[in-house]
């Protein structure tokens, strides 16, 4: 199983499934930060977008993900102020330029992205930006891996471990996988050769272990500075993952020192009960129980142009990757 959106894309893009020997199957896990954002959390973001004084600042394709009844793109078309940035520091510049508006950064992403948001918060503190806040929806990987294995639903024999997350966390944090579950993992880079090498290393393991394939970027201990930043600005909390439900300690909320930047404290919204889209099987896709084409909506009612679930919207989502880069003989590719 791979648990990183960029790995999902790379596997599909290079058609690696076609190259595997019989008896080896690649399954996608919850590696896409947009895809694992719970519908209820997205409803909060949408509700914030509707506040007239608020500008929602977000990364990439969160804009198109359907919430219970809307999406940020739909809200923007209806007059809400929603802006896409590439780096969290861009949000600070926006806030500084328009002091009369409140800028809320929808903080999604795993350990790769969270340190950059932490850095932005330190800068916001230094600059005394009172109109900037963060709705932290960040999540951390180890808890999700545990939850997947605890559920015991799909037989995972090994993990292709995330490349960039591991640059920050280091590979030691995965040692519980062989230690407690008897499952090995290899931290992989993003070229086809990197992914294939990781599979080779996994296949060759005599006993389950954690290895680093992506040696040019990842160490056992990880990036201390980023880890310290995270520890200062964020604190672990429980988080709801789409498809996986509540995973204790798998989320990041702002620490006591930075609570004044927490959007959920600064604004009060009542988003109502979350509604999952009917027929959507994103949850099972994220848990690796089904491949995207097994969902009845895949390629028919749910396509990149008209997505129903998050896994199809995000370019890193398993369904989007499968659809965009589908193997030529994939029946989902045939015209309806």
């Amino acid at each position, binding site marked *: 199983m791979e648990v990183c959106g960029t790995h999902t894309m790379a596997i599909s893009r*290079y058609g690696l499934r076609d190259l595997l020997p019989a008896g080896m199957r690649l399954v996608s896990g919850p590696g896409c930060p947009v895809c694992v954002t719970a519908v209820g959390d997205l409803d909060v973001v949408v509700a914030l977008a509707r506040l007239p004084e608020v500008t929602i600042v977000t990364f990439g394709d969160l804009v198109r993900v359907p919430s219970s009844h809307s999406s940020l793109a739909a809200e923007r078309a209806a007059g809400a102020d929603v802006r896409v940035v590439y780096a969290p520091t861009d949000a600070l510049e926006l806030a500084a330029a328009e002091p009369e508006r409140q800028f809320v950064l929808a903080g999604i992403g*795993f350990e790769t992205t969270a340190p950059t948001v932490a850095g932005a918060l330190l800068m916001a503190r230094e600059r005394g930006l009172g109109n900037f806040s963060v709705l932290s929806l960040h999540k951390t990987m180890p808890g999700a891996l545990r939850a997947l294995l605890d559920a015991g639903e799909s037989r995972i024999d090994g993990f292709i471990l995330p490349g960039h997350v591991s640059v920050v966390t280091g590979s030691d944090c995965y040692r519980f996988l062989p230690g407690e579950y008897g499952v090995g993992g290899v931290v992989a880079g993003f070229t086809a050769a990197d992914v294939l090498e990781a599979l080779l290393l996994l296949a060759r393991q005599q006993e389950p272990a954690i290895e680093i394939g992506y040696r040019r970027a990842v160490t056992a201990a990880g990036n201390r500075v980023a880890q310290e930043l995270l520890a200062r600005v964020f604190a672990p909390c429980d988080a709801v993952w789409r498809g996986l439900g509540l995973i204790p300690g798998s989320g990041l909320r702002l620490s006591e020192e930075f609570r004044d930047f927490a959007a959920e404290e600064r604004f009060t919204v009542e988003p109502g009960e979350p509604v999952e889209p009917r027929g959507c099987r994103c949850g099972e896709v994220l848990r690796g129980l089904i491949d995207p084409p097994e969902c009845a909506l895949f390629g028919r009612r749910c396509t990149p142009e008209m997505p129903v679930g998050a896994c199809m919207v995000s370019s890193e989502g398993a369904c989007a990757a499968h659809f965009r*880069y589908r193997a030529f003989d994939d029946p989902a590719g045939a015209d309806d």
Partner: protein
Amino acid sequence: MPEDRILLGHGSGGRLYRDLVRDVFLAHFANPVLSRLDDAAALTAAGRIAFTTDAHVVQPLAFAGGDIGRLAVAGTVNDLATAAARPLGLAAAFVIEEGFEIARLHEVCASMAATAAEAPVEIVTGDTKVVQRGAADGLFITTTGVGEIVAAHDVSAAAATAGDVLLLSGTLGDHALAVLAARGDFAMTLDVRSDCAPLWHLVEAALAAGGPAVHFMRDPTRGGLATVLAELAEEAALGIEVDETALPVSPAVRSACDLLGYDPLSLANEGKMVFAVAPGAAEAVLEALRGRPEGARAARIGTLVAEHPGRVALRTGYGTRRVVDMPVGELLPRIC
């Protein structure tokens, strides 16, 4: 002209308007037809006419390798070229925002004049309107072109035949990344220049070498090569096989795509042409393309086939095959 900025009065058809036409447009575009300042330009053509129009709304207005003026001229000349039409004349309609600096308008017109001289084509008529501040993103230019079709045979998707060789005149994605770099959204320097260029000479060379063997021509602008191939496959009711390793992509574009998660096939170009040529003439046409500076990196990229009509298959460097679709929606960089 004493004013240094465009005023609403410049669009009102009176004295200010005549001064603007004389001091800016005529100063750069002067030619016998335009200088008459008639409401309509009289042109002579020997045979069939090609007619096309394009609106240009790029932001920012200038970028490495070009600006909105160069785009406006090259874009329309290239659309005419795809119909095997020598450009006879362009009309240029400007919608300018009140407050726009006249000095910048001079720069844009100088760029248009230089590009027109390269094409070669003359700007023989035009119009100017001025709108209130905030209504036009600075400047919008619409160019309409008339051309004289020089090919006796039909050049269109209908003429494309199974077995035809697909040629691409050069590297992919240069324009898209040059514009992105100019927007300053990414805090990184991209060593890319827009490929924006008029391609009549290139097309003329291809037609001289291949004659009626040149079945189809189209320029991959917004939507990239993927869109042109998808359209061709659908309109011709044929399949397409593309060799990914044959696609010319500059190292800078490739690195940027890897970093940002973009696919070179989806990126916009403004100085490239795709040709479908009967197999017997493919080498000769390729040589002719490579003989022009705009075609120095021309390459054979694939073939039209009778199998899987309407679908485009990409063979990756790993020997796997996957489907190529038209890109959907805005290009958004990856998050994690």
